[in-house]
């Protein structure tokens, strides 16, 4: 039951309006208090997300289907991943699987 509650919370967060990142910018996600914040980020194809661990405990950033996976991030360590394909990416911390979040990648506007 807990699991479904947690997923429900995740879906609620995914459904909330999220501002799209300005093109060309790197979006940052903080890892703090055993949470990814914000829990959902929306970026365009080709943009990058950088995670920074602000906890005193190591965390990882791991896509659930192993599309990308950071090394263990100690306090202050960062990890970046550039998303080349549109879609929704669910990721979690492999040390603390109760921590999970999402990256939504929207198709880039076609150049004329």
């Amino acid at each position, binding site marked *: 039951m*807990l*699991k479904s509650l*947690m*997923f429900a919370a*995740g879906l609620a967060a995914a459904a909330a309006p999220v501002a799209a990142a300005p093109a060309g910018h790197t979006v940052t996600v903080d890892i703090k*208090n*055993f*949470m990814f914040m914000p829990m959902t980020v929306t970026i365009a194809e080709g943009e990058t997300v950088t995670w920074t661990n602000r*906890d*005193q*405990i*190591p965390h*990882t950033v791991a896509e*659930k289907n192993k599309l990308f996976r950071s*090394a*263990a991030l*100690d*306090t202050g360590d960062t990890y970046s991943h550039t998303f080349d394909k549109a879609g929704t990416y*669910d*990721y*979690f911390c*492999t*040390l*603390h*699987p*109760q921590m*999970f979040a999402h990256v939504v990648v929207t198709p880039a506007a076609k150049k004329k």
Partner: protein
Amino acid sequence: MDNDNDAAPSRRHLLKCSAWAGTGVAWAMLGGVPRAFALDGPARAPDELKLLFVQLSDSHIGFNKAANPEPVKTLNEAKAKIRALPKTPQLILHTGDITHLSRPDEFDTAAQILGDLPAPVRYVPGEHDILDEGAGKAYLDRYGKGTKGNGWYSFDMAGVHFIALVNVFDFKPGQEASLGADQLAWLKDDLRAVSHSTPVVVYTHIPLWDIYAPWGWGTSDSEVTVAMLRPYGSVTVLNGHIHQIQQKVEGNITFHTARGTAYPQPAPGAADSPGPLVVPPEQLRSYLGVSDISVRRGRHPLAIHDATLSEM
């Protein structure tokens, strides 16, 4: 089927565990190892100690934050505590998180400190021990010889069947840790040769019972595991991971989590996250400790004795 029917009923009451913990633990206080038997029945003759072993956990070598900048020092203090036991233990179990980041130098430091203990140390990995690029290769190269799968194994000592389980691999998002089908199949097979009257000690890193699921303090397939252990007259399950003592007795099975030697963590749900608990430096050692477990000849409980590092 059950060839020890006569033994089973009296064994129902065998698992009485004790904590001698300076910090006010809620369960029965039974005194230290030499005295553990005394409370069991003062009129009875002292019993012969069959096996004494020690549980160490959560050393987190490599951690250097405010909650304990010196985990090497506190692990050395734990070692001194083991050496000062009135009887020399025959075995030491380390229930994982030997290191903080699975770095070679952290494993080396831990091995150096624990290398000259008076008894062999048997390990299971914690999730902090498989953070290397090879996702566990560093741990398994060092401690996995003669083990199955991701490092599980069993052995017998002094009439006790020890089972080391591994529940820190293959985490799935939003789910608790698991042992997995392969390990459970192995366990079922392993138990086939163990008579129900044999005392069984199971040890693994993450608790094999649900302590606090929002923090991942439990194992998703623990119920099927525990079901395999229920026919046994005396089962003791030893875990680490949560850096504090929690205990539960269910029928013939006693579940017990040990203190770590590095830093404390909050009580379940008592903080925003399970991150390290910073306590005043002069109090730190009352939150850290080791446990020793004695097995006596005859039908007596395995007495678990938890001692903090402040009781030197």
